[in-house]
């Protein structure tokens, strides 16, 4: 059997073409033998979604004992960017840095590995992510109407990190970046874990059906109050997971003219509100992506009033009663 050619990675990869990108990687892994090669010579611009997918893919292949060749990294147009965000370091490669590392504050958060060592530290890590992207808002604690982007990033990061820690059974990788000229914030997390269907299969909640496929599982995970851990006791007794994180993030992307993507093994879901798609893309991929990837893109100007955004979303998802039932419980 002849050795497959290296996969020549595309010049650009956006959240919008995550389906094709993940398919390319998955298919290449499927047809490659013990040696798998990726060619970086064209890589110029990747958003956090494809980048976290790629680093998770590389790490998984390495951990699985495959020989992985990362070709022409040193010639990639995005070489210094890949070094700055620690992509190359996480791939286990050392390249000379022909630039001065500037403080990434206000621009991007270098790729962060998510593993069991972060249990108990989720709030701290999420805070660090938001501190890095919006340092000017980090110190504003008494005026939430001024810190919408900061608060959203903390919220999204905590939900996504918690999902990896609670469900994946594998390490994950988080990347976040602002794009000030376009007024965009992008956040993505990817793991090479058991996937959403695998998580359901593991705990067999009452909605579990062995006939469900990966797309069914993704759709279920996006419904509020659905979680593989809904009724699973933690070490502290009653179930601690209400299964609302992904559904809230999906709706926040909708309300902020963004893009929400969720890929888990063969299940693919993406709702692109920038392109004003009427319906989401829902696909059963022909080559399963190993693990789960969630990418969120939001328009920063729409994040001003985080509290109002969240309230609207929670009402729509029926997670909040309309009437002031609980006003008497709150003291100044």
């Amino acid at each position: 059997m002849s050795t497959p050619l290296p996969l020549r990675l595309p010049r650009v990869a956006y959240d919008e073409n995550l389906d094709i990108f993940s398919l390319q990687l998955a298919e290449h892994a499927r047809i490659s033998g013990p040696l798998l090669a990726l060619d970086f010579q064209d890589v110029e611009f990747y958003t956090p979604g494809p980048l976290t997918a790629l680093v998770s893919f590389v790490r998984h292949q390495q951990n699985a004992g495959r020989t992985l060749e990362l070709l022409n990294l040193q010639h990639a147009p995005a070489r210094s960017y890949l070094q700055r965000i620690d992509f190359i370091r996480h791939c286990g490669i050392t390249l000379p840095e022909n630039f001065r590392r500037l403080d990434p504050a206000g621009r991007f958060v270098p790729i962060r590995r998510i593993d069991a060592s972060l249990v108990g530290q989720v709030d701290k890590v999420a805070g660090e992510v938001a501190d890095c992207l919006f340092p000017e808002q980090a110190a504003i604690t008494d005026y939430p109407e001024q810190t919408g982007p900061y608060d959203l990033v903390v919220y999204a990061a905590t939900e996504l990190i918690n999902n990896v820690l609670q469900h994946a059974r594998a390490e994950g990788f988080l990347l976040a970046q602002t794009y000030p000229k376009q007024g965009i914030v992008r956040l993505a997390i990817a793991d090479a874990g058991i996937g959403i269907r695998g998580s359901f299969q593991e705990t067999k909640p009452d909605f579990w059906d062995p006939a469900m496929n990966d797309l069914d599982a993704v759709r279920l995970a996006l419904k509020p109050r659905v979680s593989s851990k809904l009724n699973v006791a933690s070490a502290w007794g009653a179930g601690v997971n209400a299964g609302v994180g992904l559904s809230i993030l999906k709706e926040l992307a909708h309300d902020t003219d963004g893009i929400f993507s969720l890929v888990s093994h063969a299940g693919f879901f993406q709702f692109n509100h920038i392109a004003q798609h009427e319906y989401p893309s829902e696909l059963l991929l022909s080559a399963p992506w190993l693990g789960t990837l969630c990418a969120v893109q939001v328009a920063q100007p729409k994040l001003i009033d985080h509290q109002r955004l969240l309230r609207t979303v929670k009402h729509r998802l029926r997670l909040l009663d309309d009437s002031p039932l609980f006003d008497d419980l709150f003291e100044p």
Partner: protein
Amino acid sequence: MKHELILASDLGTYLAEGARAAEYRLRHIEPVFSVYETIVLDFTGVRGVNSSFANALVVPLFVQHGLEARGKLRFRGCNPVVKLMLESALTLGMEAAQGQGGHAYA
């Protein structure tokens, strides 16, 4: 009689993990639930709370104690986002106490 718990000093300024909330509830709230008339959870200084934390802190109290939880719990010093998360948790808690809780999917 009132029992007050200061969440920021006990847990930090951003509260994001359901397991920590559950631990806190079992260590600091459940043991005294039947002792005090009012249990005040003071969120002064807490910048944010996510769904996992709020739900794990509040909902099981309703599961365990029913509507008595609504009579005893008070929340202080909540900024608008924290208040919103707690209101959602209280909504879920009330549903659980009234036997309406369940999966929202078809």
